[in-house]
């Protein structure tokens, strides 16, 4: 399954601006989190980050479909 993964803030410094993920083990946010922690161990040192799927906050059970836009959302700090 292929989808785009965006990263912002501190996560952008670890993962890069945008990568294409092509991995058949990733079907939902929970399996994405497992893959991310293995692939980018530095992410584990951060405060709890959220995942957005198609520009909406997702939960661990949110499914990821081919072509989705997925994003790593570190703790926000605007204002």
């Amino acid at each position, binding site marked *: 399954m292929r989808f785009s993964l*965006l990263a912002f803030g*501190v996560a952008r410094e670890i993962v890069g601006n945008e990568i294409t993920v092509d991995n058949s083990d990733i079907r939902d946010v929970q399996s994405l989190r497992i893959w991310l922690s293995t692939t980018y161990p530095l992410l584990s040192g951060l*405060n709890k980050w959220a995942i*957005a799927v198609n*520009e909406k906050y997702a939960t661990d059970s949110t499914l990821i479909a081919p072509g989705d836009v997925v994003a790593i*959302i570190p703790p*926000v*700090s*605007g*204002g």
Partner: protein
Amino acid sequence: MADILLTYQPLEFSPVSPADGAQVIFQGVVRPFSKGKEVLRLEFDAYEPMAISELEKIAEEIKAKWPEVNQVLLHHRLGIVNAGEMAVIAKISSPHRADAFEACAHLMNRLKETVPIWKKECYNDGHYWVSSTP
């Protein structure tokens, strides 16, 4: 109804809204010191389309909770913002001032909870993504 802007340009003052009796404005300015260290500048990153949609949700919340509010404005700078410059301006216009104060404080609280914007503090000797590391 909601006037939402993410911009790499300096923020402008919002003009007076002549039909609304009470207008509460919040200006967030980059402080020259943070935790005792001199801050040279901030750098803001954003997931722009999602930030705009989260801000629109907050504006809808405000209209539901304070139906008399006529104007919800939130302008946020992105990229480099130097000490002494405005990073954010929020404005609520309403017939009555109690609603305007409460709704403007709510807008700023929610901005800091849910809107995907990130702040990096840059010092002489490095930088720090606020709230990102333990």
